[in-house]
């Protein structure tokens, strides 16, 4: 029913064209694949590929020294619509890609692919690239997780943040030992320099609001163990799940918004428990000294160096290195959204997105997943609403609820159409509107089934009231009718 169309351009630089092309360049080709989610639902993916050779400008850009420079130079020459991809095929012997690397994925929507002898092999490699850059069967299945039969999806496939219209991000500084440490963190500056660019890039996906707070005397729920060898305190991996709970009660959240909250906590350990390191499953200390919890947020432990002399006056002044902290928090934010780079084949080289936080194709990745999820949510909501209306025959639908339903249906149809045309941006916006309207219609307070009595309950209430009253009334009516009839007959008789 839903067709995901990815417009792709495959650009051959001189010397990289495979020998067995079916037709001379330029030509078009289409590859379709079906992703079946369950017995009734399936999503087809359609890659519309346009094969052509490089233009003069592109050749000049590809003559750059490194892949990064080539990527930056090619950026203005590409198709920048959301959801589209451009693959530049470079000769097998090209030095643009480092040794052992066959694919370089840039920051935008393009990749440099090393040529292979035959077209079939090249297409196999291109398929791998598109799987990384747009969507895979598992990412679509994860977006449609409530339709996948149980047991087919691994439980941790459902751990990413659900598509929502907005998210609230809260940065909290936890200082359990204010007598020993006076911690200063320039959170406003850090948010403006590091967090805002990332959130601006994500603003297409949802609205974000950022708060920050400082909590004093907030301790973690677990006592760390002292390790003599490293003379430090260690938090083992299996005690981490219990760390969050005691703190959470004090975190609070904005009373007005109903959006999901992402908490990022920076914990400065007490003087008596410093330095504190987090151990992973194998017992090795974690380099980031941080961990995160799906759909909740992340915690980072910030160790303060011991004072040079033991007689140093307490409290020690601590200036938090916000860049180091934000490197971890923003990485956690990416992981919470599902933008991990772990499942990439080894011969791929992915460009780091830098201060923007995520590459353009990663944004597309999110949009594909969220659009599909939104469409599925809307169809489930509207179907369930229709079933509710069927069950309660006398429910009253207000005009605004009805108009929301119509709007939701129109928007979701438009989203599906736009997806099949390859317009990802328009499809995502339409799916967001559809979700807003359908949620408003479904959760309207007037649709509480308690307020509508089924007909048999009405009979059950009124009949015992009116039937005993009705019996003498009916009987006297019958008596009156009989008497009038008798009365009418009598004058004729008397004659």
């Amino acid at each position, binding site marked *: 029913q839903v067709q995901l169309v990815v417009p792709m351009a495959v650009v051959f630089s001189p010397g990289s064209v495979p020998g067995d092309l079916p037709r001379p360049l330029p030509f078009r080709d289409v590859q379709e694949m079906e992703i079946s989610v369950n017995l009734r639902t399936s999503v087809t993916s359609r890659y519309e590929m346009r094969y052509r050779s490089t233009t003069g400008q592109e050749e000049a850009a590809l003559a750059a020294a490194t892949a990064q420079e080539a990527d930056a130079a090619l950026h203005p020459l590409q198709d920048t619509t959301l959801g589209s991809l451009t693959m530049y095929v470079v000769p097998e012997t090209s030095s643009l890609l480092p040794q052992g690397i066959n694919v370089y994925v840039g920051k935008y929507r393009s990749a440099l692919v090393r040529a292979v002898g035959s077209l079939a092999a090249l297409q196999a490699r291109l398929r791998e690239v598109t799987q990384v850059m747009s969507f895979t069967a598992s990412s679509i299945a994860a977006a449609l*997780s*409530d339709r996948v039969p*149980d047991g087919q999806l*691994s*439980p*941790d496939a*459902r*751990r990413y943040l*659900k598509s929502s219209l907005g998210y609230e991000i809260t940065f909290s500084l936890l200082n359990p030992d204010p007598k020993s440490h006076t911690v200063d963190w320039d959170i406003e500056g850090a948010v403006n320099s*590091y967090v805002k660019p990332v959130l601006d890039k994500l603003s297409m996906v949802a609205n974000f609001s950022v708060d920050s707070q400082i909590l004093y005397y907030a301790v973690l729920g677990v006592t760390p163990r002292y390790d003599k060898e490293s003379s430090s305190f260690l938090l083992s*991996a*299996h005690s*981490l*799940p*219990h760390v*969050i*709970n*005691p703190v959470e*009660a004090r*975190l*609070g*959240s904005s*009373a007005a918004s*109903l959006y*999901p909250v992402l908490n990022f906590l920076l914990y400065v350990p007490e003087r008596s428990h410093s330095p504190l390191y*987090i151990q*992973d499953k194998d017992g090795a200390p*974690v380099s*980031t000294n*941080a*961990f*995160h*919890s*799906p*759909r*909740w947020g*992340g915690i980072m432990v910030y160790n303060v160096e011991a004072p040079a002399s033991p007689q140093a006056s307490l409290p020690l002044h601590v200036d938090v290195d916000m*860049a180091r902290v*934000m*490197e*971890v928090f*923003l*990485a956690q934010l*990416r*992981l919470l959204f599902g933008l*991990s780079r772990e499942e990439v084949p080894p011969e791929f080289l992915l460009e*780091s997105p*830098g*201060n923007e*936080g995520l590459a353009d194709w990663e944004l597309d990745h999110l949009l594909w997943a969220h659009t599909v999820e939104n469409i599925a949510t809307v169809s*489930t909501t509207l179907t*369930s609403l229709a079933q*509710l209306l069927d069950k309660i025959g006398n429910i009253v639908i207000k005009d605004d609820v009805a108009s929301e339903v119509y709007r939701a249906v129109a928007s979701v149809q438009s989203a599906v159409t736009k997806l099949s045309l390859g317009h990802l941006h328009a499809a995502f916006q339409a799916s967001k509107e559809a979700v807003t309207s359908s949620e408003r219609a*479904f959760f*309207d*307070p007037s*649709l*509480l*089934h*308690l307020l509508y009595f089924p007909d048999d309950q009405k009979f059950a209430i009124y009949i015992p009231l009116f039937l005993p009253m009705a019996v003498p009334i009916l009987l006297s009516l019958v008596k009156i009718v009989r008497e009038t009839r008798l009365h009418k007959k009598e004058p004729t008789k008397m004659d």
Partner: protein
Amino acid sequence: FQDQAEQFFRSGHTNNWAVLVCTSRFWFNYRHVANTLSVYRSVKRLGIPDSHIVLMLADDMACNPRNPKPATVFSHKNMELNVYGDDVEVDYRSYEVTVENFLRVLTGRIPPSTPRSKRLLSDDRSNILIYMTGHGGNGFLKFQDSEEITNVELADAFEQMWQKRRYNELLFIIDTCQGASMYERFYSPNIMALASSQVGEDSLSHQPDLGIGVHLMDRYTFYVLEFLEEIHPASQTNMNDLFQVCPKSLCVSTPGHRTDLFRREPRRVLITDFFGSVRKVEITAETLALRR
């Protein structure tokens, strides 16, 4: 340890909610408020924060003019355990505890002006514990001495929740007379239910306190509280142990349970899956390289 890790991933939930409802008012129903507060206390102790608990108490016992020990609600005679404490957060109090408000909380069809603390903001990865106590009968539960909720309405409300995927798994516990009748009509998946008595039986109260002058707790919840006091956030006790709580010799009524709608086997379901809030965590292995 590998087994423990597997246990984590088997449950599939990322957050926990609790909806605790006491439906009776009047001083002589002190035990129902004490029941609800005992479960509230256990759930908080095991990790669920107030922001994820919707506590509905139909009457105020702690500050009731007839309470000889104001600001306390005891669960055990000799006043051993004060379940009221000093950080109770009641979301729906007194006359706000109605069938309509309860159903609105469950289904989410709440007027837009309702504050966040009065909403059940669960999602498809939430495990929800619903505990109800009060006076009940065959197929209904009495609210505030003036209205009732039937088992059909409750089953329909759970179905509305399932349709909108407002829960991952749901544990329903009810401590009233003929409690098992309330879970007879459930038809939505992933619901496990426990009741303090079967149809035709009465749930009895535990012990009166001569100083306070009323019965302090109901038997079933008293023994459940004793059982829960042994649980800590890392414990591996499973649901089969909860089913054994309060046998007929102690409870006089026969507690019942229903697991046919539940996807996992009860022995694989940890108590902390519903009563606590054990989070899945992952080590953050990457950082984002930032230009300073």
